[in-house]
């Protein structure tokens, strides 16, 4: 059965620069999200948006300082958390929502799931959640083929984990010892269904990996440092040729499944408790101040800088033109 990953992680084992980077990344993800919701309210962005607020620590901790540009990720459909952590420029992500040619898709629009930035190892995502579980084995196999030490990190929700594809993917990854890190962002709900209503497990989703002989664990996904450590070990194992790791990271979404979801299927007290006591950003900020890594003023300054960066990104994305209608006839074939 999956063990819970525990480790005494102290801020003093990190440089201030790294710690601030974790904080900045999380704060940037959240502000990006809040501002996107604002753009939706202003009627500038339409379609579906699944806010990623509440689980920033999971993405920041797993990606920052662990992955290089040449390492691959398949992000999930919740917020833009992983793309931002991987360094995709904010103006490009906003452009993909606004449908301007600033977007990574040069005006096709991408919503959450079709932004791509191959120069940073971001190979896109599917509208059919969980499809990335299949693609990731091919991407990871290619590292074997070319003899490179590139790793592939694949993110997916607890709901997506119930797709049949997960089992095919785990079988391949275990069989060919592929350099994959599976990160299941378990926020307990898939739209309206609690994980206990839709998954047959011993205790945790990560237990499934056991059957394929894949090392696995459960971790507090809202602890950015713990996330960093557990993924670091998995990346090292993958680079040593020891194959895949399955990490189930526990978190919760602060908002409904999509903007406009009444979110009435979740106990209000449980939700409030996650917001009040397990917010990854608030908790990390408190830790940094307690350990005297930064002061409140430092954080304020960082937040102001991020506000400016976001405002500039939105401005750039909005200022770019919409494509001309012929855009839809471009790019189907090489």
């Amino acid at each position, binding site marked *: 059965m999956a063990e819970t990953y525990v480790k005494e992680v102290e801020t003093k084992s990190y440089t201030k620069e790294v710690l601030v980077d974790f904080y900045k990344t999380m704060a940037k993800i959240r502000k990006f999200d809040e501002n996107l919701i604002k753009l939706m309210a202003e009627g500038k962005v339409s379609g579906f948006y699944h806010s990623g607020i509440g689980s920033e620590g999971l993405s920041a901790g797993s990606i920052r300082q662990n992955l290089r540009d040449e390492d691959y990720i398949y992000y999930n459909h919740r917020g833009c958390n992983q793309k931002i952590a991987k360094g995709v420029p904010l103006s490009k992500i906003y452009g993909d929502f606004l449908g301007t040619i600033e977007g990574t898709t040069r005006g096709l629009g*991408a919503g959450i799931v079709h932004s791509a930035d191959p120069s940073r190892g971001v190979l896109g995502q599917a509208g059919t959640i969980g499809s990335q579980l299949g693609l990731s084995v091919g991407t990871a196999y290619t590292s074997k083929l070319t003899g490179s030490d590139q790793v592939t990190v694949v993110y997916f929700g607890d709901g997506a984990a119930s797709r049949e594809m997960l089992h095919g993917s785990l079988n391949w990854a275990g069989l060919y010892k592929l350099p994959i890190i599976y990160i299941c962002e378990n926020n307990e709900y898939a739209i309206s269904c609690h994980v206990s209503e839709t998954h047959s497990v011993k205790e945790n989703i990560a237990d499934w990996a056991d059957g394929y002989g894949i090392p696995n664990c459960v971790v507090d996904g809202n602890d950015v440092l713990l996330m960093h450590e557990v993924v670091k070990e998995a990346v090292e194992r993958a680079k040593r040729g020891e194959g895949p790791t399955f990490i189930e990271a526990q978190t919760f979404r602060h908002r409904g499944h999509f903007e406009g979801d009444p979110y009435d299927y979740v106990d209000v007290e449980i939700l409030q408790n996650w917001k009040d006591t397990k917010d990854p950003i608030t908790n990390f900020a408190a830790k940094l101040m307690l350990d005297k890594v930064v002061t409140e003023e430092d954080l304020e300054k960082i937040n102001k800088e991020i506000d400016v960066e976001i405002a500039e990104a939105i401005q750039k994305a909005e200022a770019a033109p919409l494509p001309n209608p012929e855009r839809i006839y471009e790019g189907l074939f090489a």
Partner: protein
Amino acid sequence: MRKITMRAALLEALNEEMERDETTVLFGEDVGKFGGINAVTKGLYEKFGSTRVFDTPIAEPTIVAAAVGMAITGNARPIPELQFGDFVGIAFDEVFNKMGKWRFMHGGQMEMPVTLRLPIGIAGGAGPEHSQSPQALFMHGPGLQIVIPSTPYDAKGLLKTAIRDNNAVLFFEHKVLYDMKGEVPEEEYLIPFGKADIKRSGTDVTIIATALQVHTALAAADELAVQGVEVEVIDPRTLAPLDMETILESVRKTGRALIVHEEPKTGGSGAEIAAQIQEGALFDLSAPIRRIGSPDVPIAQSIYLEQFYTPSKDQITKAVNELMEY
């Protein structure tokens, strides 16, 4: 007569048929307590209980395969839902080869009373994998009946027929139509498969349209009538079986045919309909058969670009005027 939305009409059909036949079982993602992401199944869980109405894991192949496995026992009448019709791609083998062929492959010894509900269509920035109209793929699949209603009245009558039918039905619901209101009588009625409906009579041009495009065609017909061109609008309502008799009769009268659908033009249902029109009425035609579909490229996520995919009233009036030049 009272007017209700297509969503309400579908829900009435589900309610009535589930009351009528206790072997019916309804399942899919979020269809239970949540009532479905399109709110079509609201209240069914509370009314029929958690064995007959249940939420499934996100596992489309298993949803369809389970429905097939239930149906062939002869003891259950499953009504599964895929959250988006596009996801039929994930369950393609289960639909195309299992649902469609199981009975035949095994010598006709079992029945396949499955009604698979599939919401389709471009509906506001949902992107390339949540906006498609994949129905034509299944015209190429023997053993599958294809239903595609355009009004609340048709939706209710056809869904009731689908549920009672002992053969597989793919029931396509255009998402934009869910909120559209139309007359639906209080009394019970059924609509047979393979019976097209003439939504407007006319003498000059026959338009064959499905789902949302029936309404676009009717709007174009109103405009054309002002110019003195009388358009006949035919809604096949089921693509399999396809009521070619009604279509051919109309085309023989008008001598001109235009087929309009939101599916991509190439290989869309219009291709088959056009082929059958020329097989049955070539020498009655005074103009080439025309087709309007969406462009043969994936649907862009951008809501701005999306408008260039949905066939428009102007495209239809232009095509009709061109046909009238012959």
